[in-house]
């Protein structure tokens, strides 16, 4: 007897070790997923960066309200008169089209 006797070496993981392994694996997965979603989110960060560039342009402007634009005031006094004047309506206003009725 006993020539081919073979006892499989038992892999025993205690409850404590099991919790430890699962904890580490969970942490790794969680960090990875977090980093990945972060990267995807940051694909649109350029929108915020461009928006900030625009707000910077606003803050550094000497004049910050449309009605105080000196070139525009000059245009109205020399040319169009005032907003909604006859000439303004003719040049700067439009109408829209119901495209469902266009063939």
């Amino acid at each position: 007897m006993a020539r081919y006797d073979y006892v499989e070496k038992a892999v025993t993981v205690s409850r404590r070790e099991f919790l430890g392994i699962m904890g580490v694996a969970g942490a790794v997965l969680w960090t990875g997923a977090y980093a990945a979603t972060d990267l995807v989110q940051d694909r649109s960060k350029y929108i915020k960066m461009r928006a900030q560039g625009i707000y910077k342009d606003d803050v550094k402007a000497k004049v910050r309200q449309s009605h105080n634009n000196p070139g525009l005031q000059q245009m109205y006094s020399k040319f169009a008169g005032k907003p909604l004047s006859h000439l303004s309506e003719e040049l700067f206003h439009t109408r829209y089209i119901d495209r469902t009725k266009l063939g």
Partner: protein
Amino acid sequence: MKGFQAQELNNIIEIDRKKCKGCDSCKAFCPTDAISGKYGAVHRVDSEKCIFCGQCLVNCPFGAIKDTVDTVDTVIEKLKNKQMTVVATIAPAVRVAIGEEFGMEPGTLVTEKLYGALKKVGFKILDTNFAADHTIMEEGSELIAKIRHYILGEPTEHHLGALPQFTSCCPGWVRYAELYYPGILPNLSSAKSPMMMAGPLAKTYGAKEIWHVNPEDMYVVAVMPCTGKKFEASRPEFASASEYWKHHGRTGHYPDVDTVLTTRDLARLFKKLNIDFNNVEPFTDADNPLAQYSGAGTIFGNTGGVMEAALRTAYYVITGKELEVLEYTPVRGLKGLKEASVTMKDAKTGKDITLKVAVVHGAKENLKPVVEAVLAGTSPYHFIEVMNCPGGCVNGGGQPINPMGTSWLGNWKAILPWS
């Protein structure tokens, strides 16, 4: 093709059959479900449904979607023709994005460099920001006239549309309304978009008072962050300058805006003409009144910007005083629907006026309920800003293609959350 007027461009966005992998990304960005094709099969754009916003184009991971209207060489030819006065009108969002095409970080403000490069290749400038200020004056006056008439019951001399008033600067939104919600059209502001104000202004006032040239010898090039603007400029009703001159003894029929270049197109033009954009001599064009603009004009490029600019002026017109704090934060940021209400004391009647406003961007997700509430008569607002693209024009379909999409590793600033 259905739904187009004569002369209108009707095929601006196209999917390259060879490059399309059928991944469906474009469908996820299309506000009008104009893209068809099964997952895995080649997709195509239905131009009858398309509003030409170009969101699919800037978000295609394979670069398979293209803008079919390329007039860069035509513009170069016009610039070489010394008889022509070639005027560029540059939208607000272009100056914070064109740098990306020359290796700068997104959001770098390059107004002076851009002016310098434009001057070097022979453009005259009428800044679209000037026209944006102009739009605020026209559109804001219209809104105030409506409020005085409908809410305060005052008589009016104008032919007014309905309240709530929608903004009409975004060509994608205008086409969307015309195609899908024609019942809402009386609510759209009758004011033209800044680009379409810039065109006739250049060819009337600009020709007469600023550049002293014949309007027929002018060529207006609009540089826009937007593919939809190519469609808008081709609308046949936009020939107001030539109509104006017909009453003043001149002949000839020409469009108000001759052609539109996207931000990408302009960068290509500079490269073709060997302009070293990074080292070009800056130029402010300080003596040109049409290059003057206010901070309110420039913020048009952001979602909420038209609203904020309009509030700054409406507050002044109604109360007779300037706003103390100009930054109006409730309409800033990337929330899909932003609401606010502002109470102002009317200097004329002494009554309080409460203006309720809303800002919508990202038409795909956020637009429908707002429009349908207006049609149902349950909308609480007086003034509603709509921009089709998420984030507004800064993220338009004509902008440099996602500078962070293809090389995350090269852009640390884009990745690190604290930067």
